[in-house]
């Protein structure tokens, strides 16, 4: 009964999410299809190479995939298919888009999951320590390195890690080996460099956010009260300060996660040749494979919206005073 308003709120937000996702799908679709090139170009290159008559073949291919229709008809068709859960056909890989996504999502997921765990664990601990020891040497060092971390271009960091650990020291392969079974130690080893590449920037961000969120609360009255009661410092920091710092922290971490899915992870996958969603959407853009581009954008957008919604709901549990009605 306590949270009956929450259901209405979630429904409202979901409707809103669908509208935004629709807008973004439309923009992406128009952008990709408005370009001068067509998915048939790829066949065209092959055909010309083998000396066949091109013009007829292009027409045949365009007719076969409905690419000769006006763009609004193609759009309508695409939306109807999408509504039925059909994401379309990938031209460049010759398989249904849904199968392509099913084969590749796990690579992105494992990279983002491991990086987040690494970054959140180390980042939050360092941030707490840095705040508790404010204005000491440790704090200055931590702050300085968090600046370094957020300023390192992650694609360059990836190249440097490859240079040092793979090319010079020979500890790791220079690319991600896709033949390894997913749940194996070898796969974990292959992910060390990519996780460091993606995780460093996140980690540095978390140190900064945690430190400032902790500092906001450290000088509050209830902390003095807790200390005056004679509570051990561990309890004061862990239960009183950190709990209150958690709320702004969750906001910013979740927000970060949304932007990371498409920024950092995208580039990390390209640097290491990890065949995740970023990589396939990247290849699809170059191959004019618009159904894949739109599908990946849609999934990314929906994830971001979903994460935002979950964050807002998480607030109401972290701080029961918050209501959205």
């Amino acid at each position, binding site marked *: 009964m306590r949270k009956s308003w929450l259901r209405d709120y979630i429904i409202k937000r979901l409707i809103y999410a669908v509208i935004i996702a629709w807008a*973004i799908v439309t923009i992406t679709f128009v952008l990709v299809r408005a370009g001068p090139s067509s998915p048939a170009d790829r066949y065209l290159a092959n055909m010309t190479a083998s000396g066949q008559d091109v013009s007829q073949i292009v027409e045949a291919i365009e007719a076969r995939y409905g690419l000769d229709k006006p763009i609004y008809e193609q759009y309508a068709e695409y939306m109807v298919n999408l509504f039925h859960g059909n994401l379309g056909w990938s031209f460049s890989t010759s398989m249904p888009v849904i199968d392509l996504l099913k084969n590749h999502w796990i690579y992105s997921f494992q990279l983002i999951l491991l990086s987040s765990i690494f970054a959140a664990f180390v980042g939050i601990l360092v941030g707490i320590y840095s705040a508790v020891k404010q204005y000491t040497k440790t704090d200055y060092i931590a702050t300085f390195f968090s*600046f370094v971390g957020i300023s390192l*271009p992650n694609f*360059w960091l990836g*190249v440097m890690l490859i*240079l040092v650990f793979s*090319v010079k020291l020979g500890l790791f392969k220079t690319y991600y080996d896709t033949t390894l079974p997913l749940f194996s130690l070898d796969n974990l080893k292959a992910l060390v460099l990519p996780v460091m590449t993606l995780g460093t920037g996140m980690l540095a961000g978390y140190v900064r956010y945690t430190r400032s969120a902790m500092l906001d609360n450290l000088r509050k009255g209830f902390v003095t009260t807790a200390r005056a009661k004679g509570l051990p410092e561990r309890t004061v920091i862990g239960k009183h300060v950190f709990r209150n710092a958690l709320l702004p922290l969750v906001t910013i971490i979740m927000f970060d996660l949304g932007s990371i899915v*498409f920024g950092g992870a995208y580039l990390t996958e*390209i640097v290491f040749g990890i065949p995740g969603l970023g990589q396939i959407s990247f290849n699809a853009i170059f191959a004019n494979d618009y159904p894949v581009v739109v599908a990946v*954008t849609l999934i990314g957008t929906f994830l971001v919206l979903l994460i935002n919604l979950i964050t807002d709901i998480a607030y109401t549990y972290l701080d029961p005073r918050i209501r959205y009605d």
Partner: protein
Amino acid sequence: MIERLQHMAKKVGRPLYGNRRLISYYWERTRRNKLAVFGIAFILFLILLGVVGPFCTMDPTMVDFEKKNLPPVGFTAVKSLYHIETDELTTTEIHGTWKHPLGTDSKGRDMLAMIVSGARVSLLVGLIATGIAILIGTVIGVLSAYLGGWADNVLMRFTDIMMTFPFFLLLVLIVFIFGPSLAFIVLVIGLTGWTGTARLIRSESLSLRTREFVIAARALGASDGRVIFRHLIPNVISLIIVIATLSIPGVILAEAALSFIGLGDPTVPSWGIILEAGQHSLDTAWWVAVEPGIMLFLTVLAFNFLGDGLRDAFDPKSNV
């Protein structure tokens, strides 16, 4: 009474620009932050490099295969040569020369010249794209806050959509479709990167709108334009400066990342493009990938230091 109000509105309405005392006060506060001073120093050095540098170095596009893969001064590299007649592999050590202090790349182009020309590109991209983004963001933010009602609603929903759109993917998509020219890349980054600014400026303007001096100005019959340009915008200037400084690194990185994945302007040697080429010759010429990355890193670091220092300096609650 009216004179007093007019006087008040005039005085409080000009916090930063045109107020020498306040500028020197903020400068004093910024100066106490050593990292911010490093930031300023490096940015000035970079501007000097970008403006004067290209006249002092050789042509960054000059190809010389005789002198390819020369290491930087003080380093040696091992070069292997395979002789087809004798079926032998000979290795020779090559040393860096002062003629090419930072070495050369796989086409024998001078790295120093390319780094210097890259500095110009990065600065131009950073400043112009951020300028465009800040301008759009400020206009939308102030309008949204000042007009309120349905206009606010429409503008903010539009901002939401732009914000949810995966920024980098949008960039890749647009640049791929319409071709990679540097001017176009700058424009696209500027036209897509204003959302955060709009949100921040809006919330700041919303709180300003209810302040006494704005109410006083409106009570005195000031027009909407006057309130916006004389009272709202001057009061968000310090916020704008901070946002601008902190968004320049993101813009520079976006351009570098685009070039790195092969969507840069091939006619302009930017750091990202050098880096992309260097990535493929890590085993023969590591410096080609290392040098532009260090510059990129230091540039981003400098702007982050400065932005952080400015934010603290403008924040009356922080004691620097």
